[in-house]
């Protein structure tokens, strides 16, 4: 009962500050402070000491560094003709697929997910490149933003993935196996998204612009030529990871340098371009990372209040059968997802939920994939959903608009979880095939 009150009160603080229109990153810090002060009874100097310690640790962490670099890379693509070329190049090829260029969001995020281990980086980078182009071409904003919110979180499921590494270390599972296990579920989710886009746009054709006239062979050749710059960029970045030249965390820097080199070769590089892309990248990165930093502080506060541990303990005492456990755990994770970010959800609940899951007979690798999916869902649920914040920032739409746009894709992820539960081999087949 106590735990429920504490959780409800924390959520009330959150809604209060966010509702007043206090900046999100300030709101999160205020919620943490208020929760520790009123609910835990700490004095201000102890709270301050915790805040400074955690904020220093998190704001100077290597893990955070890939985000601004990837965003800078996206900014260079955005401000050169690489992005316009991408859409020109893809147009003729997607003409016969319902939904046409809307699939660039899903495809782009899926591809980018293979480079980046974090979800805000994927959403911000791909979103910066696609939202304006799609909107300018007359594609439906809501479908475009929703698919971005959903597909942006694939960064966690498709390797490399920061959350999976954290899970692997804590659960003492092989990270290579976990990475392999994420591939098929990731592709399944992106197939679900693409299927949904096809269905929606077939039912309401007004969501996409009118089709262009017939094309000839030359159009296709020109289109392929237009795709070259981005293809080169993706090949180099992916190649640097899969040959081991760069670690996944370093690939972002490779991406920036390659993008600058492409701008140089295509004669678009100028001091103005560097300045504009840098300042643009700074603004998006600061917007994203400031929230991530104070969210870490709020997670710490919630950890001090023992909310996740107590609830997980409560679940343990129910002695549920495997299916019941899975349903209750899913509800628990969805609830945590309202106000926590990905990694925190995993680290705070795992010491209790993992033994429970293992006892109930779930495979630890499967459970890792399941957890990552739950974390992905947390990225698109309000009030604290990072993909929603990122998309609000780059589209200028309100958070409620973005959240509603993301809802169908949230439901599709839920469907993905059900499929994964019914057919565990979706996750386990590939690692078993690769590693025996």
């Amino acid at each position, binding site marked *: 009962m106590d735990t429920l009150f504490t959780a409800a009160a924390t959520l009330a603080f959150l809604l209060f500050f*966010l*509702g*007043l*229109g*206090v*900046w*999100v*990153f*300030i709101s999160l810090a*205020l919620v943490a*402070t208020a929760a520790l002060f009123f609910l835990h009874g700490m004095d201000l100097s102890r709270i*301050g*000491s915790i*805040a*400074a310690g955690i*904020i*220093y640790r998190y*704001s*100077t*962490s*290597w893990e*955070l*560094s890939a985000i*601004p*670099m990837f965003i*800078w890379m996206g900014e260079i693509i955005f401000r050169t003709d690489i992005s316009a070329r991408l859409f020109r190049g893809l147009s003729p090829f997607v003409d016969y697929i319902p939904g046409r260029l809307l699939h660039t969001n899903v495809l782009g995020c899926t591809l980018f997910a293979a480079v980046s281990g974090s979800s805000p980086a994927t959403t911000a980078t791909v979103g910066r490149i696609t*939202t*304006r182009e799609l*909107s*300018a071409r007359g594609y439906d*904003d809501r479908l475009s933003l929703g698919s971005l919110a959903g597909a942006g979180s694939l960064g966690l499921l498709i390797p490399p993935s920061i959350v999976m590494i954290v899970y692997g270390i804590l659960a003492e599972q092989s990270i290579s196996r976990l990475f392999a296990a994420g591939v098929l579920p990731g592709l399944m989710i992106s197939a679900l998204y693409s299927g949904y886009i096809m269905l929606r746009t077939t039912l309401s054709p007004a969501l996409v612009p009118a089709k262009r006239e017939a094309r000839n062979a030359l159009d296709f050749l020109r289109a392929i030529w237009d795709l070259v710059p981005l293809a080169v960029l993706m090949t180099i970045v992916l190649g640097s990871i899969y040959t081991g*030249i*760069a670690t996944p965390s*370093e690939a972002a*820097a*490779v991406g*920036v*340098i390659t993008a600058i080199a492409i701008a140089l070769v295509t004669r678009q590089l100028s001091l103005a371009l560097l300045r504009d892309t*840098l*300042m*643009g*990248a*700074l*603004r*998006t*990165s*600061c*917007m994203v*990372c*400031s*929230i991530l*930093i104070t969210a870490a502080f709020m997670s710490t506060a919630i950890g001090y209040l023992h909310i996740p541990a107590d609830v997980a303990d409560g679940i343990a005492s129910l002695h549920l059968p495997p299916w019941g456990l899975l349903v209750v755990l899913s509800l628990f994770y969805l609830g945590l997802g309202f106000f926590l970010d990905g990694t925190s959800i995993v680290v705070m609940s795992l010491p209790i939920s993992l033994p429970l899951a293992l006892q109930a007979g779930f495979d630890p690798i499967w459970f890792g994939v399941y957890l990552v999916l739950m974390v992905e869902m947390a990225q698109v649920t309000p009030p604290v959903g990072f993909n929603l*914040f990122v998309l609000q*920032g*780059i*589209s*200028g739409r*309100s*958070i*409620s608009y973005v959240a509603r746009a993301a809802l169908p894709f949230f439901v599709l992820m839920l469907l993905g979880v059900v499929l994964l539960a019914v057919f565990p081999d979706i996750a386990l087949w590939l690692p078993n095939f690769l590693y025996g």
Partner: protein
Amino acid sequence: MARFYSNVFALSRLAAVIAACALVYMVSHIAYEIILRSFFATSTFVLDEFVGYAIGICIIWSLGYVLEHGDLIRVGLVLDRLPERAQQLLTAVSALVACALSVGLAWMFWIRVARAWSRGTVSSSVAAVPTWIPEGAIMVGLGVFALAAFAHGLRHITGHPSPAPHTPLATPVE
């Protein structure tokens, strides 16, 4: 008053330029590290540490600049339904709260800086960087943001226009 606002913004912009340099530095250090590792079988041995310092500066030092450009996210659910003046006052209150919060946090960092200085604490890498330097950098960044937030709040009470050029990050084509 106008002079105060434009001076504070100039300071925020200067801090943002330094933050941008930190971003350039991050990319350069990683590139250098990759070259050392691939071709010379050696390393700087301080990559994650130094890139860590840079990302801290990159984010914290640009806060004021980004705030004045209106890029920091807030939820408009209630705000958008209020009359203009009420919106301004609510923004002012939020900004002053943000100012108080970062002053408090900067003070907590000052305690850390002073202790690291007197104890001679260094990072446990080959570089043995005195930890008061990066902690001090975060403290200064928080101070700059506190000042920017204060000016932002005051500006919304007096109804003074923003000193930042109007260049929205989001460029929706309507």
